[in-house]
């Protein structure tokens, strides 16, 4: 309180600004001052950019380096342990970067999906009336989110590497799936031509479902009759492709891994690095999503439940039509930043040797070519674009579910 009084006293004592001095007069004019301040900011910014620009040019010259992206066409001559597209050590740096980018995107997409599912489950369980379940989930969430994600990654990686058996003593499920310290071996699907019909059936199912949903909605608005949209959707999207698959004679041949002399052969290998990164990112982010979901559901006032019950709606319909749409409005914005965080955290891959974009372009390519500026700029630009795309998509979704007021 005393500070406030002394403050006002001081500003009173300063009195009205001196009007005689023209410079002071300009300085005391609010508009003029804001223009001056902005000009100073711009000038300062450009001076700073010019300063670091000239320094960079001087330094590059001193080291005899040029600023060019020619290195992208040179063979990379290093191996990448997981490549979704064709890649050998003879491929170019540009291709290595693409392989890295695809690895980043793969782990990010997988992570976002599992983190969302787990997060929603944990968030709902956290609201359970069952005391034991509630406490277990609480302890799990607090432990998970208060430990750095890098430690999760290293811990899970260590567990896979040190605690799972060597391929020769692999733990197997029905002799189809093998858990070893070199990764998980799963059967590899080999798609044959007839599989096309299943894909067509799937697309037809999705299209049919969308049309049916629109029609059902119009019918409901017109007549009040409610159609079983969920079951029809399930039948169209899952049932139809399964039917097509069976009718065309199961056109996928599974190549199961076989135990060789030293290692497992064949099948699809999920490398331990991917596994550790994926699991760690999913668990870590799911703890945050769980708290977001919990807060979202709690934010819907209890009166909404009561009102819906009073209208005679079933519990499931209340959830679907009343509670979840309102909760989503609270949930989606923070969920966006969790998705962004997960994508950015996938750059920690480098700590365990998963070859993502930072490890390929910003790591080995940088070391081999000595192009620090170019590679780092590319990596930064790629992450900026990914972030931008995710936020644009989530903003679009947010607009769609936003509360439409009068």
């Amino acid at each position, binding site marked *: 309180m005393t500070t406030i009084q002394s403050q006002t006293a001081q500003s009173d004592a300063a009195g009205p600004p001196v009007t005689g001095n023209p410079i002071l007069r300009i300085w005391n004019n609010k508009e003029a001052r*804001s223009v001056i301040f902005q000009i100073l900011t711009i000038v300062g910014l450009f001076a700073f950019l010019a300063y670091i620009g000239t320094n960079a040019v001087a330094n*590059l010259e001193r080291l005899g380096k040029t600023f060019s992206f020619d290195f992208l066409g040179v063979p990379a001559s290093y191996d990448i342990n997981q490549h979704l597209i064709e890649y050998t050590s003879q491929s170019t740096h540009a291709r290595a970067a693409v392989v890295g980018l695809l690895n980043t995107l793969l782990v990010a997409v997988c992570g976002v999906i599992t983190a969302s599912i787990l997060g929603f489950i944990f968030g709902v369980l956290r609201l359970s009336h069952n005391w*034991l379940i509630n406490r277990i989930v609480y302890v799990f969430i607090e432990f998970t989110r208060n*430990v750095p994600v890098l*430690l999760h990654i290293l*811990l899970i990686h*260590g567990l896979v590497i040190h605690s799972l058996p060597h391929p020769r003593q692999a733990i197997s499920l029905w002799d189809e799936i093998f858990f070893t310290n070199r990764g998980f071996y799963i059967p590899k699907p080999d798609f044959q031509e007839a599989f096309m019909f299943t894909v067509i059936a799937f697309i037809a199912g999705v299209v049919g479902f969308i049309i049916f949903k629109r029609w059902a909605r119009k019918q409901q608005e017109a007549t009040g009759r409610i159609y079983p949209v969920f079951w029809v959707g399930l039948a169209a999207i899952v049932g139809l492709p399964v039917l097509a698959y069976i009718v065309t004679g199961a056109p996928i041949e599974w190549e199961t891994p076989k135990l060789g002399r030293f290692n497992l052969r064949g099948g699809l290998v999920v490398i331990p690095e991917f596994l550790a990164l994926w699991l760690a990112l999913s668990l870590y982010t799911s703890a945050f999503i769980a708290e977001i979901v919990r807060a979202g559901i709690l934010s819907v006032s209890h009166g909404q439940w009561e009102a819906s019950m009073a209208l005679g709606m079933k519990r499931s319909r209340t959830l679907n039509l009343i509670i979840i749409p309102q909760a989503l409005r609270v949930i989606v914005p923070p969920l966006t930043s969790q998705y962004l965080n997960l994508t950015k955290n996938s750059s920690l891959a480098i700590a365990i040797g998963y070859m993502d974009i930072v490890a390929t372009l910003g790591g080995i390519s940088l070391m081999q070519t000595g192009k620090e500026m170019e590679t*780092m700029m590319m990596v*930064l630009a790629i*992450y900026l674009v990914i972030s931008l795309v995710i936020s644009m998509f989530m903003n679009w979704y947010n607009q769609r579910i936003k509360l439409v007021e009068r």
Partner: protein
Amino acid sequence: MASETATQKYEPGTHPDMKPPVLTSGPVYWLKENLFGSITSTILTLLAVYLLYLIIPPLFNWAVLDATVNAASRTECQQAGDGACWAFIKDRFLLLVYGFYPIEERWRVNLSFILLLVAIAAILWDAMPARRHFVKFSVAYPFVAAYLLLGGEWFGVPTGLEEVTTDQFGGIMLTVVIGITGISISLPIGIVLALGRIGNLPAVRVVCVMFIEFIRGVPLITLLFVASTMLTYFLPPGTEFNLLLRVLIMVTLFASAYMAEVIRGGLQAIPKGQYEAADSMGLKYWQAMRLIILPQALKISIPGIVNTFIGLYKDTTLVVVIGLLDPLGIAKSSLADNRWQGLSNEMYIFIALFFFICCFSMSRYSLYLENKLHTGHKR
């Protein structure tokens, strides 16, 4: 049943005793209500008990009953029992705490840690005796700590302490140095950025938005890589720049962008009337901000600010990627030791516990503060 009792007539005083009401307190009621309330609840409870049975006893056996505390190597541990080998942690404990700080100078780390506790207490504990004087010390603390930890010559003036170079910093001490520096500097920078972003100077706003969105759009790792590989290019030729200092700058800038967004949320939640009231009182911009707007805005953004602090503290682990020896860096080099190879679980669990204790207490404090500062109506 109801109709029966309604029709039956009793003379006054002859009504038989009613049954006692159903139990509504006590452990049996609690169990029934909280664990076996419905069929689903009962199933969930049984599943949870089974899950705990699967996890807890083996974990307890591994971590406590079968664990070995005294051993000189992993093989000795394995001979003693098949549980955790805590001897490894015991062997590396001092390294994990102090890094490679010279042994005879470690009292300086201890002293600055004790002073840190005093400085933090003065800020967090508002019933502290003579708090006003201690707060002055808190402001001066960063310089005191820098003096104590670094020693050597400052601007040619000997300080009386032996010099310790920053590459000897390591372990938990390094985590705390990065964390505290980042936390204390990112808050003021974040406030300035947030004010710039919501202010009405277009040029300043554009600069602030660009800075904030750039930093938030890229992972901290890439910024640390920039600090370790590219930053020297932007400095005058021949400038030697301490790696720890570069990392500190990057971590601080990173945190301040996130801080700015949190504070912007708080600023935008302040009703327009408060700004207008401050203007009509004739307060200048900075006065209005300092006396009217920021106290309210910061108060409502406390949970977000503490979350950013926690995030920053956890992110300090990333410095291991560019070769600084934080606890994870020490862990990495310790695990490469022949005697202890393969004991990653013990090491990482120990470090995880350390971070859990720090971050969990921070989030608890934020909850407490939120409740204390909640001056509005609360149901």
